[in-house]
């Protein structure tokens, strides 16, 4: 699924330190744009880096679009909004995969080129190199293989989130690799190609050292990108603004944008789906509160300095008026709950009964069933449609009572029924989808990307610290995230001798004789 996020103006404008860093950022942006636009697509292979891990993302401070392949309506509107940056957008989209491929290819080919060039250019004058070279060849080959495999395993993953700012560690590592390979080529050109170095063993050793260093850079990348944030250090409290559902998560040392992406991953599987139809107070109570007192001015000429007194009097009167709306709320809620329970009972009974109408057709039955009354053999779809009819009405009424009717169309119910029948599920298993509001992931259609805006007062590449508050906003709801550090634990030791478990009777009985 492609996620995307729009650049939020809040984080850019609200801190003053930004303006001073703007210059530096522009420069850095320029340099890094070249090397860091790496990816955004799925096919890049860099032997060392960070190519892609889960939060592989966008690298610049400008609004970003979606991935190369797909573009949806929202993106088109976004694009038309930022027409000024559209050229940069295009550039980034097509150059970044190319740059990434080039950089990866170059780092892969470099050691082989180091070995091959002397052989091609001045083969005759090279010193013969016996077994030590062969050992080095073998180790070189295996190290390159290991690099390839581990890069494929760790870094070649399609991006799942497009983050607003570039990822500092990733850019750092990319720049490191680029500088590293460039400096190796420089030295190679000056020391080997120009003077036509004849010591072939030295050249092979040089290439082997390059591969070693690449392996170490990959280790560094692994630690910085994957391992550092595994040990939990902070506890994030995530609260949904619309209905107050909250969860606590433990994360390690992450930047704010990565933490945001991680929180969203958990959001989709932990939080029950937001149902805007479930309001807090029933309408009957809300409308009653609208009535206000009317205050009349008797015999006062200047009403200006009485206005504050007037409003205060109104508020005081409204507070003193006996408010029975809590009573109505209580009864209304009890009534709704009773209705839901009744309909749920009807639904459960209807479904149980419907499931008894069909059973799995065994192969041996075909022989024993009488030819006069052949049983009709159906595939799951037809079976589902056949038993859907008796339970349709009960299901419809139940969904209406719990206000879930928008999430489940008739088609989806029949599909689910077919699925359950195919897998021999009981009626209860079929119903679990409707009785409990499931996680948001269950109701997503995977075609559209999810657009979230990260709103924060601190720069989003800063790492988490105590007291940070940032929020993730969507059109209809927002998630407020608060950061608290996990407490430092003092764990002391106490030894208990297993023989020290002794007991005495505590009795005092009195007997009369």
């Amino acid at each position: 699924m492609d996620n995307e996020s729009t650049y939020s103006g809040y984080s850019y404008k609200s801190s003053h330190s930004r303006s001073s860093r703007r210059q530096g950022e522009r420069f850095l942006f320029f340099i890094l744009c070249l090397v860091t636009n790496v990816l955004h697509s799925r096919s890049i292979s860099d032997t060392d880096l960070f190519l892609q891990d889960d939060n592989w993302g966008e690298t610049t401070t400008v609004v970003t679009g979606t991935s190369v392949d797909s573009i949806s309506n929202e993106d088109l509107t976004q694009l038309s909004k930022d027409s000024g940056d559209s050229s940069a957008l295009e550039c980034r989209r097509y150059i970044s995969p190319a740059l990434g491929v080039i950089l990866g290819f170059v780092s892969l080919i470099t050691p082989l080129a180091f070995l091959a060039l002397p052989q091609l250019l001045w083969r005759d004058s090279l010193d013969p190199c016996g077994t030590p070279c062969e050992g080095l060849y073998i180790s070189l080959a295996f190290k390159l293989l290991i690099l390839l495999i581990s890069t494929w395993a760790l870094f070649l993953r399609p991006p799942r989130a497009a983050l607003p700012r570039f990822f500092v560690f990733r850019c750092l590592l990319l720049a490191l690799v680029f500088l590293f390979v460039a400096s190796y080529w420089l030295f190679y050109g000056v020391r080997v190609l120009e003077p036509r170095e004849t010591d072939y063993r030295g050249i092979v050793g040089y290439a082997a050292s390059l591969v070693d260093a690449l392996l170490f850079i990959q280790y560094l990348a692994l630690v910085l990108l994957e391992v550092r944030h595994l040990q939990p250090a902070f506890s994030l409290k995530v609260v949904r603004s619309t209905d107050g559902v909250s969860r606590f998560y433990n994360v390690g040392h992450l930047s704010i944008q990565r933490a945001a992406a991680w929180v969203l991953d958990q959001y989709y599987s932990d939080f029950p789906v937001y149902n805007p139809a479930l309001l807090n107070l029933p309408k009957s109570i809300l409308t009653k509160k609208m009535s206000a007192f009317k205050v009349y001015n008797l015999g006062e000429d200047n009403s200006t300095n009485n206005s504050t007194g007037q409003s205060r009097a109104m508020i005081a009167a409204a507070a003193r008026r006996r408010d029975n709306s809590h009573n109505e709320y209580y009864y209304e809620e009890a009534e709704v709950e009773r209705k839901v329970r009744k309909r749920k009972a009807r639904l459960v009974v209807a479904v149980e009964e419907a499931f008894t109408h069909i059973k799995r057709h065994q192969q041996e039955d075909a022989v024993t069933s009488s030819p006069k009354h052949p049983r009709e053999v159906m595939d799951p779809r037809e079976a589902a449609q056949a038993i859907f009819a008796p339970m349709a009405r009960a299901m419809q009424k139940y969904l209406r009572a719990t206000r879930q009717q928008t999430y489940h169309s008739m088609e989806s119910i029949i599909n689910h029924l077919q699925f359950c029948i195919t897998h021999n599920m009981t009626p209860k298993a079929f119903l679990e989808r409707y009785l409990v509001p499931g996680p948001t992931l269950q109701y997503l259609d995977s075609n559209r990307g999810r657009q979230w805006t990260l709103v924060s007062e601190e720069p989003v590449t800063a790492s988490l610290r105590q007291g940070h508050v940032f929020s993730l906003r969507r059109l209809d709801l927002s998630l407020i995230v608060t950061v608290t550090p996990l407490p430092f634990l003092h764990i002391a030791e106490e030894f208990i001798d297993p023989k020290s478990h002794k007991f005495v009777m505590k009795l005092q009985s009195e007997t009369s004789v």
Partner: protein
Amino acid sequence: MSFVPGQPVTAVVERVEIQKLRQGENLILGFSIGGGIDQDPGQNPFSEDKSDKGIYVTRISPKGPADLAGLKIGDKIMQVNGWDMTMVTHDQARKKLTKKKEDVVRLLVTRKSLEDAVKHSKCSYAKH
């Protein structure tokens, strides 16, 4: 009346002889006992030393045989018919007191006031 392990216990005792009274099927003595080596000595209200696990008289029924014989509440019973009562469990003490074949029990009891009386008389004797 404190008890030092390994040392003989010395106490000033009074001899009390109680005739058992027949009440229906049972022979009763008319008092209640508490204490014993299997009981918690800290809860004994009558002992001076709260680690004393001896058998104490906790209640006397008025006009009963024990009352008439001169047993007082809070007495510590040292012997019953020759059987030692200082190192017995509660149940063993009960059994020694309620033997069906015996009509009379001869107790050796001690109490604080006995000690004080002896000490007092010793002092007054020393004066003379």
